């Protein structure tokens, strides 16, 4: 049984200037170790981001919603161990 990835860092996208969001998210994800995750906090569903992650990392990315609106979305984006 695969254990769930552990969140080691939180990115609150609302606090990042729009042009920096994509680089920060992907740089942070890139630095994760297997079994590690980042928690993404956003004000809308980051579904398009999921597709980008799949394009880059395929099934190595674990995408789990911890909160789904209406004001705040929180997604645990992990590197599968």
């Amino acid at each position, binding site marked *: 049984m695969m254990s769930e990835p552990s969140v080691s860092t939180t990115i609150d996208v609302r606090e*990042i200037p729009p042009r920096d969001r994509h680089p920060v998210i992907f740089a942070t994800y890139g630095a994760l170790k297997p079994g590690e995750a980042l928690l993404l906090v956003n004000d809308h569903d980051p579904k398009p981001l999921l597709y980008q992650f*799949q394009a880059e990392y395929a*099934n190595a990315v674990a995408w789990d919603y*911890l*909160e789904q609106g209406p004001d705040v979305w*929180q997604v645990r984006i992990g590197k599968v161990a």
Partner: protein
Amino acid sequence: MGGREMGNLSASQRTSVPGAAGGLPVPLRLPLLALGFVALFAGIIAGLARLVPLQIDHASELAAVHGPLMVCGFLGTVIGLERAVALSRVWAYTGPLATALGGALLIAGVHTEVPPLVGPALFLLGSLVLVLANGAVMRLRLAADTVVMALGALAWAGGNLMWLSGANIIELVPLWASFLILTIAGERLELSRLMPPTRAGRQLFPPIVAVLGAGAVLAPAAEQSGYTLFALGLIALALWLMRYDVARRTVRTDKLPRFIAVCLLSGYAWLAFAGVLILAAGGIATDLAVYDAALHAIFLGFVFSMIFGHAPVILPAVTTIQVPYRSFFYVHLALLHISLTMRVIGDLAGIEALRVHGGHANAAAIVLFVLATISSAAAARLSRARAAAAPAAGRKR
């Protein structure tokens, strides 16, 4: 966009049930959170019992555990729960379980015969689990912010150990305060890491934490120098956060991010004030007025400001209960700050009535926060139920 079909998603990517992630099923987490809030309410009553003689049984025994109920029973449980969810390991939930039970036994012990060391021992256990949990995060990612949060947990454990060994709670206040302050500072540092402060800023942070921690550790043994260091650490940390926290920017946005920023910045102001007060007074327990003012500047002005701001984000992550932002939230935040100002002026100017009314209004602010949070959550649940029940109804415009 890639052309991948949904069928290529792994099981975890198909997760659409919020909170299903996190190690322990949500229904098992809720009793722990509930016990945490029981400790909060008992802690508030205990605080009121310290302000004026309360006509309830065992008022003075309850009053004596005001601090432990708030710091360990309530905050220790909520922080422990949040960390366990993030770590997503079942063992990490033993921490908030221990502190939740400890709080319950502390309350029970006021009325019946409970061995007096059981509560403190459970709090120590809970804090040790938090140390391990933060250690696990550190091993995943060694950085200034993860180290700071681990130090916070260590400070909590140190204070609990002192209490278990029979120390007076007054002596371990700086350690317990450091637990909460470093936990919050670590989390803010983590966020600011993504938009690094200047090099000078990054270099300043570790020494500030060192001064704060050294002061907290020294204070029981060497009061004068310990409290001076602790106070300087508070002031320096507050100034650092006011200078480098992204809240400076997000306060110019709107709705929830703006509300969080207002909570943060006003909290930092109270932290700085507490430091100045302790520095001027030469200690925290030099007299009861200074003790009351400084403690509540930290634990109400700073810590509860943080709680008010972060509840709409942390509660859903831990419980899947959504708490949409309401502009009404500014009401209990304002009440918190106004009542605290009243209380502190009453303390320092020796106006007993102002102090007492301020204290009562503090309690009202926290109760109002709980009610507003429940109301927002209930309204969200109701509107979601309605939307689910009538998806084809559409809107006639």
